[in-house]
């Protein structure tokens, strides 16, 4: 049956008026075969490979977008966790050399970001993991296109509180080392980090992956908002239904783009990540979806329930549309990148505590929020530990991307401009949990993890 004018117009309208796009095509690249004790040799090989593959990715993504008529916004690469690459390198400069080599490759290939400069240390850490982490203030402030991560907890291993404390201390150094703490916007601390996530800043190419594979992140908060706004009075069952139908459509488009691009690149197709990822473009906002669902502001009573309904409907539609749904596939609720979330913080509707509650039902975590620059490291460690505990206990991914903004207090904001947006500084509890996080050690895995 041929496509009707209503259907063609619906798709055209998604792109023309509601910011539907393929948010990211991310090429996962294995680099384990390039591990070498001489850091310079290893870095040269990494730079060559990423430049070559990145150039092909960008060229072919433009071709696929042109052929299919679906915009592709970001072209990215995720790599083998970088801590593994420096394991045999005695040179203390190895992490920084690697960071700079990756950054040069990203610039040369015009890849938007390369993710994977990080370590898996959810149970404990190696000397290379710790060295890599210690390099982050310098590595992230001296590069533009590098993204970093650390997996600090998992449902099966528990939480590495020593690493949480190390990360909290380093976040303060990262904030001091870069203007407006920009380096902190390029780092995520995770629980249960997925190995095939196409979204930054937390993408990496996990140990269970092939030499290369292509993952796709779709995005349609604007499309979902538009359809929710059309039904202001329907009941919640029907609301779920209309969201599900819409997400089905955009997931199918994402899968088609991903398969086509993977085939042109000669690599396997990985996952479609169906996460709703807002941008600061007018209307492309998860907060506005919540508003359309009937909340005066995100943070109002009912917000967590609304978000639970929203992400469940997204998963239902996405899973029906594609057998390859993976990655994070939750709802991003980054404060700085969503106009309705920014306004909600500014008018007092949304507190850090409510934001944390919201992340208990949507997978992605506390994202792109600013706290006062004088927030002590132990408070950052407590915020991270709380968030990762939600992921660890509930067998899901959670992450923290926090901006301790130097010299700022609640009422101020940090304006990054562009995609990263504007983060109003949120109030942090003035009561201390330092004696708890300061105990260090490993928090045991939840009893529910013993499933064998």
């Amino acid at each position, binding site marked *: *049956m*041929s*496509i*009707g*004018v*209503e*259907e*063609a*117009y*619906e*798709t*055209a*309208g998604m*792109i*023309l008026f509601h910011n539907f796009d393929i948010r990211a095509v991310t090429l996962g690249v294995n680099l384990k075969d390039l591990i070498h004790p001489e850091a310079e040799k290893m870095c040269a090989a990494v730079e060559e490979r990423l430049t070559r593959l990145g150039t092909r990715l960008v060229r072919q993504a433009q*071709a696929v977008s*042109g*052929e*299919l*008529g*679906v915009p592709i916004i970001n072209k990215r690469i995720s790599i083998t966790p970088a801590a593994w690459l420096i394991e045999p390198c005695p040179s203390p400069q190895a992490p920084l050399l690697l960071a700079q080599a990756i950054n040069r490759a990203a610039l040369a290939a015009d890849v938007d970001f390369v993710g994977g400069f990080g370590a898996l240390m959810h149970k404990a850490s190696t000397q290379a993991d710790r060295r890599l982490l210690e390099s982050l203030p310098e590595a992230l402030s001296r590069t533009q296109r590098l993204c970093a991560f650390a997996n600090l907890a998992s449902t099966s291993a528990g939480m590495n509180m020593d690493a949480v404390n190390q990360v909290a201390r380093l976040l303060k150094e990262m904030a001091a080392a870069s203007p407006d703490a920009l380096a902190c916007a390029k780092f995520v601390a995770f629980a249960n980090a997925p190995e095939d996530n196409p979204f930054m800043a937390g993408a990496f190419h996990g140990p269970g992956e092939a030499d290369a594979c292509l993952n796709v992140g779709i995005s349609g908060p604007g499309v979902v908002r538009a359809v929710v706004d059309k039904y202001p009075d329907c009941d919640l069952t029907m609301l779920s239904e209309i969201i599900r139908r819409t997400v089905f*459509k*955009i997931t*199918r*488009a994402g*899968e*088609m783009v991903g398969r086509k691009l993977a085939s042109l690149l000669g690599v396997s197709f990985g996952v479609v990540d169906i996460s709703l990822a807002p941008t600061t473009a007018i209307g492309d906002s998860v907060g506005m979806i919540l508003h359309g669902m009937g909340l005066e502001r995100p943070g109002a009573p009912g917000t967590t329930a609304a978000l639970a309904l929203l992400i469940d409907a997204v998963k239902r539609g996405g899973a029906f549309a594609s057998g390859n749904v993976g990655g994070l596939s939750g709802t991003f609720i980054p404060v700085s990148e969503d106009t309705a979330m920014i306004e909600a913080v500014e008018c007092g509707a949304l507190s850090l505590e409510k934001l944390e509650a919201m992340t208990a039902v949507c997978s992605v975590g506390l994202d792109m929020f600013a706290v006062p620059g004088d927030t002590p490291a132990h408070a950052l460690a407590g915020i991270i530990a709380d968030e990762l505990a939600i992921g660890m206990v509930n067998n899901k991914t959670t992450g923290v991307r926090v901006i301790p903004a130097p010299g700022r207090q609640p009422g101020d904001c940090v304006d990054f401009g562009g995609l990263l947006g504007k983060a109003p500084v949120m109030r942090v509890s003035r009561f201390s949990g330092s004696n708890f996080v300061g105990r260090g050690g490993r928090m045991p895995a939840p009893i529910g993890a013993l499933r064998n």
Partner: protein
Amino acid sequence: MEKIVVVVVGTDRVGIIARFSGHLFAHNINIEDVQQKVMDGIFVMTLLADISQSSSSPALVRRELEELGREMGLKVMVHSEAVLKAMHRV
């Protein structure tokens, strides 16, 4: 067989079909179906076209039709029919 769907959105005026079909003819692209309708007060026209006999790429055709749309004050999207079928057919 490769097919595209051209979606033209805007205000109805003289010559829309003539000019868009003229462009497609110049690229040796066969039009198989034309539909038009006013939705939400907006004029929408779709053209289903077979480009398998054309030496022009979908990307080139898209650029030209978008430029034509700009000249005529219309929004134009050119999709692969395969994408629309994937989205709208189970």
